[in-house]
């Protein structure tokens, strides 16, 4: 390829459409009285999530002659929850998030995320609002909903909440993933494999599709379900082969949150990854009281891909990582 690397990876016409998507989103939230906020891209703490790799840097300057370690945020979640704990009320943010090790047709290491929080909403009320936003921006049909359990039952004929590792390995082998299954010690990576390779392509093709009640073992920062603690108040949104959004009925319990961070770090040790310091300011905010709320992160670049009919993320961002 002899493409000129000074030139944008997106066409100017696409960037105009992108600007209009952003304007629509801002108008959507303005009409609903949700306040736009901005939180730091550079944070003193990172995340324990075993599947997220952070970019690290250092501030050197007044009062920090020896350097202050800083991390590019993988999402604005912790900082926004600190604002909620401080009484911000409903907030949204359109900002950059950074994830190392991620690059491809649907990934760029630096990308734009829309994240918003709704005090007083549960995950289903938030799904309603996301559905409205989707219809506003994409003029698409109303979203459908299916539980994680029903998705596995419908498309693969198994119950993901009641399956043994051995049975899951056999199922993976049946779909051609025997090498991955052979060495895997845990259920969740295999569920994720089957979900993204075998279920995702079949859902959300014509209408957006919410998958809710993810297993408790993949709860991340969601509350467990009161009625069925095997599942969590976590949902994802899929449309036309892309994962668009991930949302939670937010966990507000500081000690439970701290315990999950510890579990992440135990898993990191098992996987040979370095431990990550827990974000104490975030935990202190939960301690002081996070209002009951639901929140969601939505990938704006992927939304623009859908709005413009582009098949690669670099076609909707001004300069992808190869041109940055």
């Amino acid at each position: 390829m002899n493409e000129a690397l000074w030139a944008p990876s997106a066409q100017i016409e696409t960037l105009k459409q992108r600007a209009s998507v952003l304007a629509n989103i801002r108008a959507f939230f303005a009409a609903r009285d949700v306040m736009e906020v901005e939180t730091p891209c550079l944070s003193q703490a990172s995340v324990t999530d075993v599947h997220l790799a952070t970019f690290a840097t250092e501030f050197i300057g007044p009062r920090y002659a020896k350097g202050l370690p800083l991390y590019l945020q993988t999402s604005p979640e912790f900082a926004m929850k600190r604002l909620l704990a401080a009484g911000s009320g409903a907030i949204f943010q359109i900002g950059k998030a950074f994830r190392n090790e991620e690059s491809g047709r649907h990934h760029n290491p630096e990308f734009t995320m829309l994240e918003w929080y709704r005090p007083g909403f549960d995950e289903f009320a938030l799904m309603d609002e996301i559905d409205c936003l989707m219809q506003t921006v994409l003029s698409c049909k109303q979203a459908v909903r299916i539980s994680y359990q029903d998705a596995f039952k419908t498309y693969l004929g198994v119950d993901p909440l009641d399956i043994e590792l051995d049975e899951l390995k056999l199922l993976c082998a049946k779909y051609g993933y025997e090498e991955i299954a052979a060495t895997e010690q845990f259920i969740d990576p295999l569920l994720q494999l089957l979900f993204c390779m075998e279920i995702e392509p079949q859902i959300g093709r014509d209408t957006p599709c919410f998958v809710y009640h993810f297993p408790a073992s993949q709860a991340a920062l969601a509350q467990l379900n009161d009625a069925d603690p095997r599942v969590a108040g976590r949902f994802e949104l899929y449309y036309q082969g892309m994962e668009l959004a991930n949302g939670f009925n937010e966990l507000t319990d500081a000690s439970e949150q701290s315990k999950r961070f510890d579990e992440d770090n135990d898993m990191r040790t098992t996987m040979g990854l370095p431990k990550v310091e827990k974000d104490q300011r975030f935990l202190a905010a939960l301690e002081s009281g996070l209002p009951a709320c639901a929140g969601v992160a939505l990938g704006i670049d992927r939304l623009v891909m859908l709005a413009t009919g582009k098949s690669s993320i670099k076609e909707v961002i001004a300069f992808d990582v190869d041109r940055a």
Partner: protein
Amino acid sequence: MANYSTNEFKGGLKIMMDGEPCTILENEMVKPGKGQAFNRVKIRKLISGKVLEKTFKSGDSVEGADVMETDLAYLYADGEFWHFMNNDTFEQIAADEKAVGENVKWLVENDVCTITLWNGNPIAVTPPNFVELEITDTDPGLKGDTAGTGGKPATLTTGAVVRVPLFVQIGEVIKVDTRTGEYVSRVK
């Protein structure tokens, strides 16, 4: 041979799969926002020619394949092997029927072909994109129509059969695109 991690995967990389050397055609990262990353890879097996998809857990490694390509001139066939020569060193290599495969019909003496070697042995022979061959047989009765009614079959010296325009006759040399097996033009 070195091992390659999924981060080193790219089109053209040669790896071992099921005991067979393969070339990577496409590599795509698939990663849920909150979950394990995978690489979905499209590969072509270099001996069987089969194209298949394979999924790896990101970060895993696979064994590389000692595959290299070399440009050699076709010399002759002895009934069992097809012989090629490096025009600079005069070193010769013999490829068997399996390596030559269907491309046998495009082998023209002295044409420079690309020979794919695995551990030093020829496993594939790729002819030049265009070859020139003489027509040994075609229906002479069909004349005069140049409007392109689909043409007629013509047999070439190597046994290859190509559709040619109606005005092309026995004894003429034609240029053929070996990638598609289609007639390009007459050669004067």
